[in-house]
């Protein structure tokens, strides 16, 4: 299965890009995706463990199971207003 990851703010800058395609075996979770991203983008390492997670624009967690086509987002604590 495959999908996209969007990165925002400090995570986007750490990775040097705002969007990444992912491809993982069935049954993968957000945690597995994040571990995979940290291998391919070492600069994400210090950031991603503290990231907030959204899947398909809803808040999710590292335990959330992924499905084909999912849009995952990783970002730091929000600071709008």
């Amino acid at each position: 299965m495959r999908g996209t990851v969007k990165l925002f703010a400090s995570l986007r800058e750490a990775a040097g890009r705002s969007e990444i395609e992912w491809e993982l075996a069935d049954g993968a979770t957000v945690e597995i995706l994040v571990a995979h991203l940290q291998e391919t983008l070492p600069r994400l390492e210090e950031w991603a463990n503290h990231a907030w997670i959204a899947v398909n624009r809803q808040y999710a967690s590292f335990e959330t199971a992924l499905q084909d086509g999912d849009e995952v987002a990783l970002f730091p604590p929000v600071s709008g207003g």
Partner: protein
Amino acid sequence: MSDKLFEITTAPISVDEVSRRVSSPAVGAVVSFAGIVRGTNAGRQVRYLEYEAYPEMAESTLAQVADEIKARWPVEKVAIVHRVGRQDIGDTSVVIAVASAQRQGAFEAGRYAIDRIKEIVPLWKKEYFEGGEAWIEGPEKPPKTEAKR
């Protein structure tokens, strides 16, 4: 000009314009809040801010904040517009307008809206100050998980 109730935009925003989005003959009170870019923060002279959003999720999360408000107070309509991109000192970064038949609850609802925006809406600001720049990160813990599988 937009009539969307929940909007992320790069264009300048105003209290009057957003308040018009919630006005109707049923409305006897509109309480508005404007967030303004401040020239000092944490003892630093701020030059300007750069706001970033996850626009699609930010707009749907703003709608969620309005649903939470309507479950607590008898308000007719809520509009929230947040500007992104570079903003200078004195610029308006966010406008909230709460419309209700009568004033009861509208003030509390407006305060709740800005508090919730700072807690859960995917927006971030980077501060450019004299001598450097820094992402501002909220102190909050992540919202509880909603994605069900």
